[in-house]
């Protein structure tokens, strides 16, 4: 550290009132709307803007809303399937990019990360065209199979996120450990499962949670690939909002918020643990 001795400690900055004020303003800006949303979901009133007392009636109403519950079921199933497939594809992509040296490697790596930067609306329109022109999905398949297009679309934009997380973890892998396993009698698969995967475990957990969250709250791409019978939770919420924001929508949003925050917190925690283990 070459900081001059008289420089204020990093913590000192937060003790000065102008900075504290800015901090508080940013906090309010970020979280006040969410706080209002959560508070109003417990409001005992049809009006979303006037507080009339605490009540859980909107949550009860939610539970009784069959369409909404079905949409939540769809969302969870899609998120589960997308997570599994994205984890598989993303991990394989990361390992392929790490293991092999071939001409065009940079191009392939860039190709894998492209879906992360492509605007979601473009992905959505592209998926819509894809499922009408190139791979028309039969309409009469019945419930779980009808979710196919959404799952495929989700995997297409989510697996690159998994690949990025896993690739970052692979950078810290000691190749000699895998060679040692091979040397001790393990075949290529065995060495991958016994030595490489345990090293990747934290990134697999983090990647899975990331994938689940991304799939669960995706609206744009889902909107373009959902059919009349395959409504997901965010798409359903959107359709309800079009007829006015009721406290019921507040309650739904609170549930979704809670789910997302929980999963993100777990993902961050897992990554933090992995980071600690990496440090010598």
């Amino acid at each position, binding site marked *: 550290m070459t900081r001059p001795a008289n420089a204020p400690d990093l913590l000192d900055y937060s003790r000065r009132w102008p900075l504290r004020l800015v901090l508080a303003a940013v906090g309010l800006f970020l979280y006040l709307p969410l706080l209002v949303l959560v508070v109003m979901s417990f409001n005992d009133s049809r009006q979303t803007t006037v507080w009339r007392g605490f009540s859980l009636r909107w949550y009860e109403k939610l539970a009784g809303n069959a369409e909404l519950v079905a949409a939540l079921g769809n969302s969870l199933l899609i998120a589960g399937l997308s997570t599994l497939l994205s984890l598989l594809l993303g991990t394989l992509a990361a390992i392929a990019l790490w293991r092999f040296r071939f001409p065009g490697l940079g191009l392939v790596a860039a190709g894998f990360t492209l879906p992360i930067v492509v605007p979601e609306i473009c992905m959505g329109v592209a998926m819509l065209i894809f499922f009408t022109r190139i791979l028309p999905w039969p309409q009469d398949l019945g419930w779980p199979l009808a979710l196919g297009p959404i799952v495929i679309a989700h995997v297409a934009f989510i697996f690159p996120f998994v690949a990025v997380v896993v690739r970052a973890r692979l950078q810290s892998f000691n190749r*000699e*450990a895998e060679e*040692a396993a*091979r040397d*001790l009698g393990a075949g290529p698969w065995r060495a991958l499962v016994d030595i490489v995967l345990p090293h990747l475990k934290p990134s697999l957990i983090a990647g899975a949670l990331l994938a689940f969250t991304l799939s669960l709250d995706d609206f744009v791409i889902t909107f373009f690939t959902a059919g009349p019978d395959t409504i997901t939770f965010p798409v359903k919420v959107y359709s309800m909002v079009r007829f006015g924001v009721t406290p019921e929508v507040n309650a739904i949003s609170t549930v979704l918020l809670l789910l997302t925050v929980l999963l993100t917190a777990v993902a961050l925690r897992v990554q933090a643990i992995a980071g600690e283990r990496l440090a010598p």
Partner: protein
Amino acid sequence: MTTAPSALAPASAVAAPAARPIIEFRHVTKRFGPVVAVDDVSLAIAEGEFFALLGPSGCGKTTLLRMLAGFETPTRGQILIDGEDYTRAPPNRRPVNMVFQSYAVFPHMSVSENIAYGLRMDGVPAAERRARVAEALALVQLEGLGDRRPDQLSGGQRQRVALARALVKRPRVVLLDEPLSALDAKLREDLRFELSRLHDRVGITFVMVTHDQDEALALATRCAVMHKGGLLQVATPADLYEFPSSRLVADFIGSVNLFEGRVRVDESDHALIDLPEAGITAWLDHGTGASETVQIWLAIRPEKMELHKRGTGAPPPVMEGTPEGHNVVAGTITDIAYLGSESVYAVRLATGKMVRVIRPNLTRWDQEDFTWDEPVWLGWHAEAAAVLLQ
């Protein structure tokens, strides 16, 4: 036992051991794109040897070892282990085990699990596995540490785990990739003795790669000096040091004073060699077999040179086994490095040539007390110099 086949004449002809070869490289070449990492190497290693592949980085020694382990495939040539062709066999099907430079101890397994891994791959039953792991732990003196995690071990202990993990499979050959380079100097010396002890005890052939000549000389029963993908010389450590075959070897193993020269008289029992760089004619107690028309080099190790006082008109000393007036040259001390157990003197000859002389500090103060700028006689015995043709 049969002797090595004639196909590997050049390398194995030098001090080839009588035992049958456990490893044979036959005209092995390895290219990486345009780079030739190993160039037509033929080499036989006998059962029970502690063999060192020695050379600077990039000389191909690691590639040679990795081809033996199965991590690289030769571009051309054959690799035989115990008489069977293993040129293209994958690493998991070879009767060799490796100790990696980073030790590559599996971080998510305990010490015992690490050592048992290879046995599990071989399908050894659990009870026998436990017994053999305990035996291996005892062999490397890690009893009681079986339940430790690798991150709770010191560097030296981790190396022992890597060794135990390789030895527990009872391979025909153990490969060691720079086994001591990751350790600090003091520990390195301890483990050097321990490696030697282990080799004697288990009787398995060891093949080691190192860039450290001290390590190679101290551990190996035989060394191959490599340079630019080829073998320069294969010999015992003592032969490498005392009878180097070329200037490169003489220079790489220890330090050496080299004089350009030309043979003037070459008899069976002595030779006379003109050394224009020293301004004298050297006397050698054996014939050289070198043509009088070619340039040769005379190599003399610094510790095989003597210093004598020259001030006040002292006559030149007579060297052992040498007629008067040979192997003695006048010089001046320009620099002294005191290293504790010995001192290194830099001496400038009248011709301007710089020569290094090492004198052991046998007593606690130097009786002769050579000092800076002192005129000295520099001399060497009739048997001290080696003649190098290339």
